[in-house]
């Protein structure tokens, strides 16, 4: 350390004196006491609640409203509710409390629709199969290059098994009859919801990709056809497409060959959701850097090679969350097919309760039951989508 010369020392002392003229030194804070902790707690509470009188009033009103709604729901749904399958108890509790017995009485009809009663185990097994493969394949590890072929193979096997279980014979062939045959008209409830949503997702995704490629292509005719198709379909409600599927498809095809209503509706939903899928895919295509395309072209890759090996893998990775949201929308949209008399979950509930005068008054409980089923599916999917989103953002 340098030693200071006397002249410097005196200058420093002078300086210090002048500083103490300007500043008053503050003593160090004492250790926090109980009083301070209370103040800290109050400060934190102020952050959580508020100090603004208007906001405080608003919060209070909102809290009271929410508590009232909760107590109403609790009173109706739990305290005064009847949980046994007891029609007279339900009758006396009517208006006061829920009758959850209706679920116990009717759940087979609600879940499996008009499927023959003796054969409903087949519906249940088919659903379990689908749910199992779904649970396996939402895991990103199932889509690593090494496991991907196995996952796809498992899907094909599951689809075949599903159809065999539901129809009663392998690929619908009389030769491979295993169980009593069940016509597609009698399929209903959860299996129908699953087959409609998964089927249209599986068909609409490739169609949507093709439409998106067409929309971004350089060929004017292809592009305008795709633009017109996408915008037309996005401009009309699903109901009108379903009406078309049930009333107009039979007219469009050669006579004597009317495909059954399930196939027609599946086709309708597919054509409808392909337009929405195409828009999601287009977003992904636009997100891919233009240099990628130029690099692929300079390697003299052809159009399809460029798209398949360079552009699409990057574009699809971008839009996984958007696609999952699209899947949720399709899943919810399948509830509309009840309008063209296919009895999926919503329709089969109507079927179960409308025909039975004793249990007809307890529709709300039934709706809550299927709402819960839809909620579990959609909420899980949306959580998955959010996880994927944050995973992509981290990359």
């Amino acid at each position, binding site marked *: 350390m340098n030693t200071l010369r006397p002249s410097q020392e005196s200058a420093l002392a002078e300086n210090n004196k002048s500083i103490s003229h300007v500043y008053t030194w503050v003593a160090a804070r004492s250790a926090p006491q109980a009083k301070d902790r209370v103040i800290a707690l109050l400060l934190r509470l102020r952050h959580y609640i508020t100090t603004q009188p208007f906001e405080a009033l608003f919060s209070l009103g909102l809290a009271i409203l929410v508590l009232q709604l909760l107590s109403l729901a609790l009173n109706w749904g739990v305290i005064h509710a009847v949980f046994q399958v007891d029609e007279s108890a339900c009758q006396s509790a009517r208006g006061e409390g829920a009758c959850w017995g209706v679920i116990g009485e009717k759940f087979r009809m609600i879940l499996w629709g008009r499927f023959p009663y003796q054969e409903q185990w087949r519906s249940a097994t088919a659903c379990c199969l689908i749910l199992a493969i779904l649970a396996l394949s939402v895991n990103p590890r199932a889509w690593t290059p090494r496991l991907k072929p196995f996952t796809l193979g498992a899907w094909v096997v599951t689809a075949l098994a599903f159809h065999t279980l539901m129809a009663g014979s392998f690929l619908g062939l009389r030769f491979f009859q295993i169980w009593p045959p069940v016509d597609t008209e009698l399929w209903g409830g959860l299996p129908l919801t699953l087959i409609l949503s998964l089927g249209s997702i599986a068909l609409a995704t490739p169609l949507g990709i093709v439409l998106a490629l067409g929309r971004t292509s350089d060929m004017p005719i292809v592009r305008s056809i795709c633009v017109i198709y996408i915008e037309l379909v996005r401009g009309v*409600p699903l109901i009108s497409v379903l009406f078309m599927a049930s009333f107009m498809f039979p007219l469009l095809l050669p006579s004597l060959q009317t495909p059954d209503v399930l196939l027609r509706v599946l086709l309708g939903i597919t054509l409808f959701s392909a337009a929405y899928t195409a828009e999601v895919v287009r977003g992904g295509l636009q997100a891919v850097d233009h240099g990628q395309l130029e690099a692929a072209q300079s390697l003299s890759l052809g159009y399809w090679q460029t798209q398949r090996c360079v552009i699409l893998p990057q574009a699809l990775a971008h839009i996984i969350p958007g696609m999952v949201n699209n899947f949720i929308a399709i899943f919810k949209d399948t*509830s*509309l097919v009840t309008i063209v008399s296919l009895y999926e979950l919503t329709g089969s509930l109507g079927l179960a309760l409308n025909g039975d005068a004793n249990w007809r008054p307890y529709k709300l409980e039934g709706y809550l039951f299927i*709402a819960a089923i839809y909620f579990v599916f959609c909420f899980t999917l949306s959580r998955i989508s959010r996880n994927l989103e944050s995973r992509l953002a981290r990359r």
Partner: protein
Amino acid sequence: MAAVLWLGHNTWINLKQRGIQSGFDFLSDTAGFDIGETFLISFDGSQAYWQAFLVGVLNTLKVSACGLVMASFLGVMVGLGRSSVRPLFKLICSTYIELIRNIPLMIQLLMWYVLLVEFLPPSTEPYSWFNHIYLSQEGLAYPGLLWLQSTDPSGAILSLWVWDRPIFDAQGVHGEFNFSPEFLSLAVALSLYTSAFIAEIVRAGIQSVAKGQVEAAQSLALTPWQIQRWVVLPQAARMIAPPLTNQYLNLVKNSSLAVVVGYPDVVNIANTALNQTGRALECISILMGVYLMFSLAIALVMNRTNYKARQYLQRGDDITSNKVPARS
């Protein structure tokens, strides 16, 4: 091209074989069915199909307009609450959003309908507010201004606005102005459902505003409300407008679910006409045409608004920018 020709050919042959008449001439035939609820124009069974369709279109417009206003208001409120720093608001708003978004609109609509039709008191003992508004199984009766016109004995025409309020007596509630339970359930379900989506859009828009903007506003001692009103929302609006247009379009298209609760919207009328006349092609194309027109109209209006807003904001940028005006 070949596929389209093939489909057209098939249709032609099928129509011929089944002896189905085609053409839009049926529109001027007598409809022969009554419509329970009309808006602006009156209708009875002796009028023509095209008038029935017009009533349907007006009913669709009515429920969509109500839904748009309520959904926008509720959506912005919930979106603000969702992005608030207060845990209470955050919890309530995010529960609301998750609950509503993950249940199909169809089921929500049916639930509201059952609630309104079965859980409300009958018309003879309605809930009433200040003797002016009555809510019962028959719907919501509300007061309003009525345009009365009559001829007095001397032949002069008298016309005046009258404050008309619903009357409640032993037979129930009577009034000139009444929202039917079908309309109410549809409007409520549509606006709640859409509001959850709008709320998420609003939240995303607010999140996209740079944090420094809020901090700058805080350092200017603006109140939280002023910060939202003058700093955050105007900037978020640019992000919000395009997806909001999509939600508005969805709301109008979703109003087609009216057919499941029996509200006489254009789908319901088209369905009835289709069943009566068997002209599937015509009815469905009218239906699609109507919705395409709505979509086009909303897209145009929103694009125009967006353009104007952008112009306005651009002008604001020029004023606040550091560009030194050129000296003359």
